[in-house]
């Protein structure tokens, strides 16, 4: 059972916003559909990059997850929520969040509850690192706004946290206005970002 909300993505070909659907409670069928479309596209594009000797290839190869496994591992566990963004009949982005087990780290809110973004990704054809002309934009913004709204609904005042992949640090630092707490050696050296209630209000304005 899932809920759907109206959202919007930027269609780069049409040059305008188009209607999309935010799915709260992605089903195994949705995930299967996503992977069936994402995987072959990813393999094809990675191969192109490999042949051109693109030095970022290793980074790209480390940036795709098996969402089916994540769905299976978290299905039925009430601490987890999986969201998807659908547009033009395809899944354009996925996000898995935890609503427990990841207390805040910023001093002013240390120990307080937050929505932790376990994983978030846009479909490979939307990834500027992978393709020259990404298809849809705003997937990340829609999903992070979802996480913030969930945090507000849970009584966590908009607090969210996540570990950004290197290529995404700019988005979280500059566009989402999150606090960078530096590299987390317990999480593969990825930088940990956290959003305060004030930052959340600023993000949604």
């Amino acid at each position, binding site marked *: 059972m899932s809920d759907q909300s109206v959202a919007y993505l930027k269609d780069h070909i049409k040059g305008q*916003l188009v209607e999309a659907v935010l799915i709260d409670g992605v089903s195994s069928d949705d995930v299967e559909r996503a992977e069936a479309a994402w995987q072959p596209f990813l393999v094809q594009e990675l191969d192109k990059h490999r042949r051109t000797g693109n030095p970022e290839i290793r980074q790209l*190869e480390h940036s*795709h*997850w*098996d969402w089916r496994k994540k769905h299976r591992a978290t299905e039925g566990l009430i601490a987890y929520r999986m969201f998807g963004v659908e547009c033009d009949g395809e899944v354009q982005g996925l996000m898995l969040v935890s609503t427990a087990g990841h207390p805040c780290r910023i001093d002013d809110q240390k120990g307080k509850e937050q929505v932790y973004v376990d994983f978030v990704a846009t479909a490979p054809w939307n990834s500027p690192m992978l393709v020259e002309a990404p298809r849809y934009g705003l*997937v990340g*913004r829609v999903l992070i706004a979802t996480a913030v709204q*969930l945090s507000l609904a849970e009584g966590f005042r908009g607090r969210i946290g996540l570990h950004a992949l290197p290529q*995404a640090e700019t988005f979280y630092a500059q566009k989402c206005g999150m606090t960078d707490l530096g590299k987390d050696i317990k999480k593969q050296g990825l930088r940990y970002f956290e959003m305060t209630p004030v930052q959340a209000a600023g993000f949604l304005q």
Partner: protein
Amino acid sequence: MKFTFDKEWLQRHADSDQNLEIAAGSFSLDQLPPAMGELAASPQPGAFGRLINLSRRKRGWTIEDLVASARIDAGEAIRIEHDSSYIPGPRTVYQLSTALDLPRERMLQLSGNMLLRDRRLGEQAVKFAARSESVEKLSRQEHQALEEFVKYLNESR
């Protein structure tokens, strides 16, 4: 739960968000390569390719069978088995590990995608490479060498 997205708010940010990656979580494989863009040396050049070759042949698979099962490029599969200087990408190593039921992290080290963390792995890889030769069917010696090396790779998994 219902969520709301202000169209005007999204429109305002559409251009500035463009060309920015958003992925967050963890690296998709257990470990990072030693450094982005740099290649680590394999503990024993050729050992990885030899392991793939023998594991494939033990199953009675052709290269085509391996390519289909692991969903990798045929050209790369051939290069892995025949070019000891070639270092496949981490995703290829991951796919091969899954198809051949070999431990991923050690395969990443053996292939040169990760720095060697297990000194004994290097020694075992040398021993394995020395004991195996390229023949059509697995010789008894190759079979034994393969069994022992795979047994070691799976230890403390």
